[in-house]
C-alpha cells in the first residue's frame, strides 16, 4: 500500500542544514495498523507530514499505492491529500462554526460533490462513529471524545487509501482514549490502513507493529520485533 525508500529530508536552520530524516525505508501493507513512535525531535512529525503529502522530501521515493508522490505542485498535492489520505489530529481541528455533519462533509465539498449528496454521505459516516444524533451540533457543544469521532468520520468519508492519525488520543482522558482506539481498531478491521503517531506505549500496543524513530532513522531491531 505504501512504500518509502531512502527518504531524506533536510531543514535549513540558519546557515547550516539539519538532516531530519536519514535514509528512511518503510513499507506498510494494505489493511495494516502501524504505530510510529519516537522522542520529540526524532523526526516522526516530519515523517508524518511527508506521508500526508503536506511536506516535500529531498531524496528517495514515496509510493502510495501505484502513485509516486514526488515533486507535486500545490494543487496536485491537495488533490492527492483529498483522495488518498484521511487525517486525524491531536486537537481535532474541526471548524468551530460548522456543525458536525458539515465538518464531516468538508472533504467532499472540495471534490465538488453537491451539498445534499455530501451531507447525506456525511450523516452515514457520523452514524458509523455513533454520532448520528449529534449531526447538527457544533464542536463547542461536544466532548473531546465526540469531537475526535467526528474527525474520524471526516477522515473516512473520502474512502482514503490510508488514515493518518497524529497523537489522536493526546487530548483525551484514558477512558475516552480507549474508546477512540477501539474505533481505530474497528476501522482497521474493515480493511483500512491506519498509521498512528504516538508517544504512548499503550496506544502503540493496539497497532500490529511499531516503528521507532531515533535521530531521523528507523531503528532496525524494533522493526524486526514487530508483527
Amino acid at each position, binding site marked *: 500500500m505504501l512504500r518509502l525508500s531512502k527518504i531524506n529530508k533536510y531543514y535549513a536552520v540558519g546557515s547550516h542544514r539539519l538532516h531530519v530524516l536519514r535514509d528512511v525505508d518503510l513499507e506498510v501493507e494494505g489493511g495494516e495498523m502501524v504505530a510510529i513512535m519516537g522522542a520529540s525531535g526524532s523526526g516522526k*512529525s516530519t515523517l508524518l*507530514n511527508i506521508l*500526508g503529502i*503536506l*511536506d516535500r522530501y529531498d531524496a528517495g521515493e514515496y509510493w502510495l499505492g501505484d502513485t509516486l508522490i514526488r515533486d507535486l505542485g*500545490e*494543487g496536485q498535492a*491537495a*488533490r492527492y*491529500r*483529498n*483522495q488518498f489520505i484521511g*487525517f486525524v*489530529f*491531536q*486537537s481535532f*481541528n474541526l*471548524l468551530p*462554526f460548522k456543525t458536525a455533519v*458539515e465538518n464531516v462533509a*468538508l*472533504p467532499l*465539498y*472540495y*471534490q*465538488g460533490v*453537491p*451539498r445534499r449528496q455530501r451531507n447525506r454521505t456525511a450523516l452515514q459516516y457520523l452514524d458509523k462513529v455513533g454520532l448520528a444524533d449529534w449531526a447538527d451540533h457544533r464542536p463547542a457543544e461536544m466532548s473531546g471524545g465526540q469531537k475526535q469521532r467526528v474527525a474520524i468520520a*471526516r477522515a473516512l468519508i*473520502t474512502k482514503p487509501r490510508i488514515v493518518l492519525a497524529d*497523537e489522536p488520543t*493526546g487530548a483525551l482522558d484514558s477512558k475516552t482514549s480507549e474508546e477512540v482506539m477501539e474505533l481505530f481498531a474497528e476501522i482497521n478491521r474493515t480493511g483500512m490502513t491506519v498509521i498512528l503517531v504516538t508517544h504512548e506505549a499503550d496506544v502503540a500496543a493496539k497497532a500490529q507493529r511499531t516503528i521507532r524513530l531515533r535521530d531521523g532513522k528507523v531503528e532496525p531491531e524494533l522493526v524486526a520485533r514487530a508483527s
Partner: protein
Amino acid sequence: MIDVDSFHEIATSLTRHKLRTALTALGVFFGLTIFMLMVSFGGSLRSGINKKMAGFATNAVFLWGQRTSEPYAGLPANRPVVFDNDDIEPLRKLAGVEYVAPRNQLGGFRAGNVVKHGSKVGAFQVAGDYPDFQFISMPLIRAGRYINDADIADRRKVAVIGESVASELFGGADPIGQALEVNGIHFVVVGVFGTRATGQQGDQQVRTIHVPFTTFQQAFHTGNRVSWFALTGKRGVDAKDLEQRVYALLRERHKVAPTDDAAIRGFNAGAQFAKTEKMFGAIDIVLGVFGLLSLLAGAIGVSNIMLISVRERTKEIGVRKALGARPTAVVGMVIAEAIMLTLVAGFIALAVGAFAIAKAADRIATMGPDFPLGPPEVSFSFSVMATAILIAVGALAGLIPAVRAAAISPVEALRDE
C-alpha cells in the same frame, strides 16, 4: 463551486466579527456614497447649464446678413446683404446639412406686433416659418399641429401659437379653429405649443405666432427676402466645419469677399455646446476620480481587515488545505468574502445615495429656472457600472489577503502548540 454553503460560509465568517465587519463596510459605504454624489453633482451642473440651452437643437447654426465691410467683385463696401428664397435650395443641398429653416419676423428680430382676437389684443412676435423649424427650435406641441408642407405650398393663412398667446388671447377657450388678426390679415389657429426652454428665452418662445413662411412673404409684402436662416447639421458632422462651408456658400451667392467677416454673421450653438460639453467632460473626470479615490480608501479598509482575518484563520485554512482545498479554492474563498463585503456595503450605499439624490432633485426642482443646478439623478447604467466597480474593487481588495492565505503552509498551521 458556488452553492448555498459557499454563501453560508461567507456569511458566517463575515458575521463572526460583527462590529469589525460593520466598520469596514462603513468605509466602502462612504466611499461609494461620495462617488455617487460626485457623479450626480457633475450631472446636476451639466443639466443646470443645459436647461438654459433647452428647446433648441444642440447643433443649430443661425445666420443673418449685415453690411459688407469691403468692396468685392466691383461692388462697394457698406452694401446690405439680404438673404432670399434662392438661397434655400443650395443650403439644403450642402453636404452634411440636415434641416434648413429660413425665417422672417414681422417688424424685425423679437419685435412685438399687435395681434387681435375679437376684443382681446396682445403684443406678440410673428414669424414666418418652414416645417423644418420645429426640428431646430423643438416646440412641444400641446394641441393641433405645427406648420406643414401643404401650408407652405398653398400659402394657407394658418397660425401655430405659443401657450402665452393662447392664454392671453383666448383665455381658457380652445384656440384651435379660431381666428386671430395680424396687421389686418386673419389667420386660423391650427396648433398650440409649449417649450422646454426656461427663463427669458422660454417666455419669448411661447409669445410667438408661427405662420407659413410663404404666407408670411405674401401677406406682409416681404418679397422673397429671408431675415435669417436656422439650420442643423447631420449627426456626426463637425459644427465648426459645417458653419465655415455655409459661410462660404452664402458669401459666394451674395458676392461678399471671402475675407469679409462683417457681412454675414452667425451664432453656432453646436460649437458653443461642444465647448461646454468639453468643460463638463473635464469636470466629470475630476469628480469621478475623486469619487473613485474615496471608494479606493474603503477598499483598502476591506483589504486590511481581510489580511487580519486571514491571519486569524491560519489554522482553519491549514485544515482546509489538509482536507484537499486547492490554492485556487482558498484564493476564491477569500476573494468571495471581500467581494461580498464590498457588494453588500455598496448596495446599501446605492440605496441610500439614490434616496438622498432623489430628495435633492425634488428640492432643486422647486428652485426655479435660474438656479444654476439641474435636478441630479442616478441612472440605471450608473448602478450597473457601480456594481461592476464594486466587484472589481472587492476582488482587488481580496487579492493580497487571498494570495497570503493560499501561501499558508498546512504543516505550520496544524502544528499543535
